[in-house]
């Protein structure tokens, strides 16, 4: 399904030489990452490798000290969450951040309610919520149940569909399958493909090699805050990724692929 995307396009989002330091700790050193429309790039790495830090840099929660961010080919600054939002970067954090007391409709439209002079247009919001759930084939009992009554997988799906409400171009998913069972995970991976096929660029942070092999087009490995490999998922083996993650193979394919067009599959 990845051939949907014309290869000629520049990456939607390109990071070059991202460096971030917390006190004496180098969290990120010269990290590069690119993602094109209609592809899923997995971001893998051990605990403390810098994945979460990189997510915070991209989402504007904690901007980089040095480095360049390009959005659709032009230089941009992401200093605050608002900047990322304005560009079209949506983030689904691991904790999901939902209002348990509100129903699915309320959560989907939180902060962007449809209203007429301040009075909520519940009918229109519910209609759009149903359309969205249907279009993404998300199975939930009803859009009017409080999210507190949903399963972990359903909540994750609702969180992802909420992040799509603002019509973003890049979607950051932080460990979306960490809390899910087997069947829920497979539903979620279907959802990620569905979203990818709509032309979205997706950065998927994951520990799970199975998920990465199933849904990602490429996988970028971070180790100790540095790039430690960039692989085409269709050709790489799970062992190669794991050895790159653990540092058993420091000279993995396309090691430190800084600015290297050949490194792109």
């Amino acid at each position, binding site marked *: *399904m990845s051939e*949907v995307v014309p290869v000629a396009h520049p990456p939607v989002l390109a990071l070059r030489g991202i460096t971030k330091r917390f006190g004496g700790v180098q969290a990120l050193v010269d990290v590069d990452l690119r993602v094109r429309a209609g592809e899923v790039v997995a971001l893998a790495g051990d605990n403390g490798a810098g994945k979460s830090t990189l997510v915070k840099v991209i989402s504007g929660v904690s901007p980089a000290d040095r480095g360049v961010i390009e959005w659709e080919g032009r230089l941009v600054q992401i200093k605050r*969450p608002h900047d990322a939002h304005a560009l079209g970067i949506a983030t689904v954090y691991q*904790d999901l*951040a*939902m*209002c*348990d*007391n*509100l*129903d699915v409709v*309320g*959560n989907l439209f*939180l*902060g*962007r*309610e449809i*209203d007429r002079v*301040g*009075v*909520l247009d519940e*009918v*229109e919001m*519910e*209609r759009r919520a*149903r*359309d969205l*759930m*249907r*279009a993404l*084939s998300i*199975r939930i*009992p*009803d*859009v*009017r*149940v*409080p999210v*507190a*009554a*949903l*399963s*972990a997988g359903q*909540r994750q799906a609702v969180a992802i569909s909420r992040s799509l409400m603002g019509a973003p171009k890049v979607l950051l998913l932080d460990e979306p399958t960490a*809390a899910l069972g087997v069947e829920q995970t497979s539903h979620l991976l279907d959802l990620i*493909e*569905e979203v990818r*096929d*709509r032309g979205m660029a997706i950065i998927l942070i994951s520990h799970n090699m199975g998920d990465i092999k199933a849904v990602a087009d490429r996988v970028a490995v971070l180790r100790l805050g540095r790039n430690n490999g960039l692989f085409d998922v269709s050709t790489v083996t799970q062992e190669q990724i794991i050895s790159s993650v653990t540092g058993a193979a420091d000279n993995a394919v396309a090691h430190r692929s800084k600015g290297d067009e050949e490194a792109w599959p």
Partner: protein
Amino acid sequence: MSRGGPHRDGGPAGPGSPGPITTDRERRAARGWRDSVRQYALEVRGSVRGGERGPLLVLAGLLVIWIVFQGLDDKFLSPRNLSNLSVDIVGTGLVAVGIVFVLLIREIDLSVGSVSGLAGAAFAVLNVNHGVPEWLAVIVAVATGTAVGAFHGFFHAWLGVPAFVVTLAGLLIWNGLTLYLLGASGTINIDEEGLVASLTSRHFGNDLVAYAVAALGTAGYFLAAHRRRSRHRAAGMPYRTEGDIGMRTGLLAVVAFAGAHTLNRFQGLPLALLIFLVVLVVSDYLLRRTRYGRRVYAVGGGVEAARRAGIGVERVRVAMFMVSGTLAAFGGLFVASGLTSASPTTARAAGSGMLLINAIAAAVIGGTSLFGGRGSPWSVLLGVVVIQSIASGMGLLGVQDAVQFMITGGVLLAAVAADALSRRAQARRGRP
């Protein structure tokens, strides 16, 4: 878009869905009252799963309370006592509505009793001692409550002091200020013919007024429900059946007209009750139907989610304490009106927390959660009737204060325990 795929039917849910509303176009014609009852049961189950407690249990409790007190003293359900009850609930009820706003954002305001005492004192001092016109003194008294709320909100939201500490300090500060204001002159009697006194003494003697209000409320409910139904139907979405709307409207009409009839057998519709009902309708609409109200619920349901959705959490917090202070002051005027005085004794009583406890109990008994994000102003009506029924019944029987305190405290504890239990049950069932 290779995966548009087989579309699931948009209907709500498979079997066992807690969905509150039925969709089915095919079945809608054949639905009778039995389906309505079943639908109501489903709806209750759905909201209980979402962490709400249905009102049925409280209604049953109220029925028991009424039957017991009527058995002990047959004056309890007399039109006179019920009419007095409907006036006595208003002061506490208004304070409790303010508490609901604060509880919804998962905070607490312990100062409301003192603030209502302060408002009464401010009014009396300005009007009686300094000759300020009543309307102006009322505005200043209510605005004092708003300012006090802003003060609490500032300390809580911007300086990060826990709300219960801020308002606990407030409880003492404003009670002290009240005693200070009244200190020189002792008890201040307010004008018995005046505006504030009429808040609780005025009744609409004409029977038609009470019936008109009942009819208006019922018709308003019916039209709103009907309009929602047509809009849902036009959008091809689940909607309530005609029979269901009819049954609900019927129940409301029975309650409203029975109430109107009872009130008319004494002195007619009390102005205080009318004001209370208007405050309930307005605040319920504000909280549940407007964009702003949705944000209030969001802050109570998940601060982090609200913040990420771009909601100014601090502003909402300050605003809720302002609402609570304002309604506490407004309620305080009704309390002063009922006593036709502002006195250090009542100020001490306010400081002792009777009004505070009653207001919190009313909100929680009615179904507003201490854990934030769940409940509505309407819950206050039920809760305050329960609380005031107990107080009124014990008053009729001449139960001494000491016992009344223990019983009221026990009722509050029971209500809070029920709230905590329903939250635990929900955590076991729903959450991951």
